[in-house]
């Protein structure tokens, strides 16, 4: 009644690259916005996040290549496709943001560059109180315009 003992079926080697790659790419991309933007040196040039995202994309590509080469079944190929989307897309979008999107600003206007006297304004602050720039005459002012959350 012994069960026939055949050669053990080759255990399918787990393709860890297919989850490590997307994990690295997503971590690299998301942590830029949630954590690393707080340090100007790592915000201006994403020394940590870009390499991490790029590494994630490469690991994903290697894993997906293996999966397709090894003639993975339908499930394996689907997994590899999902991995490709999750691993390469965020890295690509992050690179596009860093290298293209964030510098899509109009040229500074000549009027702004030549501005000598600060024009007066009266605007509501976050409590609704009106603040006039001229109220600050006699003190120095750091006036910063920012994009906001629109």
């Amino acid at each position, binding site marked *: 009644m012994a069960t026939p003992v055949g050669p053990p079926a080759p255990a399918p080697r787990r393709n860890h690259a297919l989850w490590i790659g997307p994990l690295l790419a997503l971590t690299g991309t998301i942590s830029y916005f949630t954590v690393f*933007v707080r340090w*100007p040196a790592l*915000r*201006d040039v994403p020394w940590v996040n870009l390499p991490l995202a790029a590494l994630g994309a490469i690991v994903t590509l290697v894993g997906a290549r293996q999966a397709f080469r090894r003639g993975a079944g339908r499930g394996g190929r689907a997994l590899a496709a999902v991995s490709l989307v999750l691993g390469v897309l965020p890295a690509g979008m992050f690179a596009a943001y*860093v290298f293209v999107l*964030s*510098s899509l*600003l*109009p040229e*500074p*206007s000549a*009027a*702004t*560059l030549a*501005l*000598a*006297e*600060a*024009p007066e*304004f009266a*605007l*509501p*602050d*976050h*409590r*609704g109180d009106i*603040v006039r*720039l*001229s109220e*600050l*005459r*006699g*003190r*120095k*002012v*750091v*006036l*910063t*315009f*920012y*994009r*906001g*959350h*629109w």
Partner: protein
Amino acid sequence: LQSRLTEIRSLDAEVLAVSVDPPESSREIVEAHGLEFPVLSDQSLAAIDAFGVRHPGGGLEGDIARPALFILDRDGRVVWRDLTDDWRVRVRPGRVLEVLAATP
């Protein structure tokens, strides 16, 4: 700038921030980041245009301000400005302190 606010004020300067966000959004930002300087709302872009820092179509819902920083002396003259060409790259607070210290 908030991180160096004490030093900025010790140089007899005040910080003002301006965006197109409504005051409620400014309040959320103030509370989220613990800001201790006024965050102003320029929904009509009047001040933004007066300084020439409108970014047409820069927001999801229309025009917004481009990032810009001006340092004014005690008489309201512009003594320094930074118009970054990349909105991720902003003036370091240390630079602001240097300029303020050099401004009488």
